[in-house]
C-alpha cells in the first residue's frame, strides 16, 4: 500500500493522467454500486401507469392516507423539535453522568429494525406495557390511535434531528457566544442572535431528514399503531396492502413517496450533495 501511494503525493499526482488512474481500478465496482441503487428506482418509474396516475393518486383512499401521513409526520417533527433540540443542546454543551449512555440511546433507533422498535413501543407504551397503566389512568391509549402513529414516527425519526444538530452545536467556536455575553447579551439573546443563526442550516437539514424519515415510517407504525384507514393507515402502510391487491396503484403511490424523498434531497442539495463544503 505504502509503495503505491507514495508516488502519488508528489506534485505530478495532480495532473489529469494521474487522476484518471484511480477510476480505472474503482470504476467497475462503483458503477455497479450506482446501478444497484438506481435500477429499483428506475423500475418504479418504468412501471408507473402514467395514464391512470392522476386517477389513482386522487382516489379517496390515497388522499386520506396522504393527509394522514402529512399530519403524522408533521406532528412527529414538532415533537422531535420540542424534545430533541434541548437534548441536542445538552449533549453538545454540557457534561453529565451517563452522557455516553444517552447518546447511545439516541443512536439506537437509527440502527434498530423498525419492527423491533414497534415491539419495544408496545412493551413500553402499550396497554400492557411499562407505562400502559399510568397512561391509561390519565386517559391516554396510544396503540391504534393517530397519537400512537406519531409516537412511532418520532421514535425512529428524532435521532436524525438530534445527531445532526448536536454536531453543529459542538462545532461552534464558544468564543462567539462568550463575546456576545461580554457585550451584555443575555442568554436568550445570545441564543437568538448568535447561536441559532449559526446552526440554522444544520437545524433545517436535520429537521428535513427527520420529517422524511417520519413520512416513510412503516414497521414501527404497523406493529405499534396498527392499520386503520384515516386513523393509522399512512401512505407506506397503504403501499404495502395495495401491493397485494392492486400492484399498479401501489406503484403509483410509491412514485409519490419517491418524489417527496427526492424533493427533500434537492432542498438539502447545498448541504448533502457536496456544494457547500
Amino acid at each position, binding site marked *: 500500500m505504502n*509503495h503505491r501511494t507514495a508516488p502519488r503525493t508528489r506534485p505530478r499526482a495532480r495532473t489529469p493522467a494521474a487522476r484518471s488512474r484511480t477510476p480505472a481500478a474503482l470504476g467497475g465496482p462503483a458503477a455497479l454500486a450506482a446501478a444497484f441503487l438506481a435500477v429499483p428506482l428506475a423500475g418504479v418509474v418504468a412501471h408507473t401507469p402514467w395514464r391512470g396516475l392522476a386517477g389513482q393518486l386522487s382516489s379517496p383512499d390515497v388522499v386520506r392516507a396522504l393527509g394522514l401521513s402529512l399530519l403524522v409526520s408533521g406532528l412527529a417533527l414538532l415533537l422531535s423539535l420540542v424534545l430533541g433540540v434541548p437534548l441536542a443542546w445538552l449533549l453538545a454543551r454540557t457534561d453529565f453522568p451517563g452522557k455516553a449512555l444517552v447518546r447511545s440511546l439516541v443512536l439506537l433507533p437509527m440502527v434498530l429494525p423498525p419492527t423491533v422498535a414497534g415491539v419495544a413501543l408496545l412493551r413500553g407504551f402499550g396497554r400492557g406495557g411499562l407505562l400502559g397503566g399510568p397512561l391509561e389512568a390519565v386517559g391516554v391509549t396510544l396503540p391504534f390511535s393517530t397519537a400512537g402513529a406519531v409516537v412511532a414516527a418520532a421514535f425512529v425519526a428524532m435521532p436524525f434531528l438530534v445527531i445532526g444538530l448536536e454536531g453543529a452545536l459542538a462545532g461552534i467556536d464558544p468564543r462567539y457566544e462568550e463575546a456576545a455575553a461580554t457585550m451584555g447579551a443575555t442568554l436568550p439573546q445570545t441564543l437568538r442572535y448568535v447561536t441559532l443563526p449559526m446552526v440554522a442550516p444544520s437545524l433545517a437539514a436535520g429537521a428535513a431528514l427527520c420529517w422524511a424519515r417520519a413520512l416513510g415510517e412503516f414497521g414501527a407504525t404497523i406493529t405499534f399503531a396498527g*392499520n386503520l384507514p384515516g386513523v393509522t393507515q399512512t401512505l407506506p402502510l397503504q403501499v404495502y396492502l395495495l401491493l397485494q391487491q392492486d400492484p399498479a396503484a401501489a406503484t403509483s403511490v410509491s412514485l409519490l413517496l419517491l418524489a417527496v424523498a427526492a424533493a427533500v434531497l434537492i432542498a438539502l442539495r447545498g448541504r448533502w450533495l457536496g456544494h457547500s463544503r
Partner: protein
Amino acid sequence: MPGTPAPRAPRAPRRPRAGIGAAALLLAVLVPLTALTAACGGGALGRTGDGGARATVTVLAASSLTDVLAEAGAAYEEEHPGVRLRLSFAGSQELAAQIRQGAPADLVVTADTATMEALRDFTGPSTVIARNRLVIATAPGDPLGVGSLRDLARDDVKVVLAAPEVPAGRYGQRLLERHGVTVRPVSREPSVRAVLSKVELGEADAGLVYASDAAASEGRVEAVPVPGGGAGVRYPAAPLEDAAHPGRAADFIAWLGSEPARRLLREAGFLLP
C-alpha cells in the same frame, strides 16, 4: 496486498494489475451471489452429510398453517428421507403475488378457494386439505364478557380484525354481515396472526381469528365459538405448473390427506375436509 511484489518500475504495471484487482473483486461479489441464487432456486438438490442427494420441495402456505405444517412437514420428512421440505408462510394474497412474480416453489396452500381460483393459470388441480372456523379471541377468562358477535359492536370493546385483503378479513366481514353486526375495529391487521398477537398482548380486547390460531396460542387467549364461523373456510392445496418436483409436490399433497396428517390437523384445531 502488502505482501504483493512492490512495483519496482512504478508506472507501467499499474493499470493491468488494477484491472485484475477489479475483476477479482467483481468475481468475489458475483460468485457467492450466483451460488446463493442457485441454492434458493426452488429445485436445488441439497446434499446431506451421508452423501445422498435430497430433493428440496418448496411449499408456500397461508400464515394460519404456520405451526401445523411445520409439524406435519417434520413428520413427512421422517417418512421420506429423500425429501427436504422448505416452508414459506405469508398471507394468501401475498403468496399469490409471489407466485405471479415467479417465485420458485413446488406447491401452494391458500386459506381460501377464491385466491386459489385466481391462480388457476399457475397451478394444477387443487385439493382441499383442511377446513377451519372463525372464533372470537379474548383475554383469558373473557373479562369483558364478550359472548357473541353482537358484543363486538360494543363501544367498550376494542376489536381488531384482519384486513379485507387477506382471507380471514373477508371471512370475518361476511360473517359479521350475515349476523347484521356493524363493528368499528381499531385496526385492520395485515395477517390473522397479527390479530392474534394484538389480543395476546392485551392491546386489543377481542379479535376474529381461526380456531386453530386460538389453539396455537396455548391459553394466552380464550376462544369464544361463533355460530356459522366455519362457513366456507377451506384450505386448498395445489402443485405449481412450474414446479421443479411436480411428482413430489403431488405426493406431499396426497400425504396431507393421510391418517397421520389428519391427526396433526385435528390436534391443531383444524376441521377435516
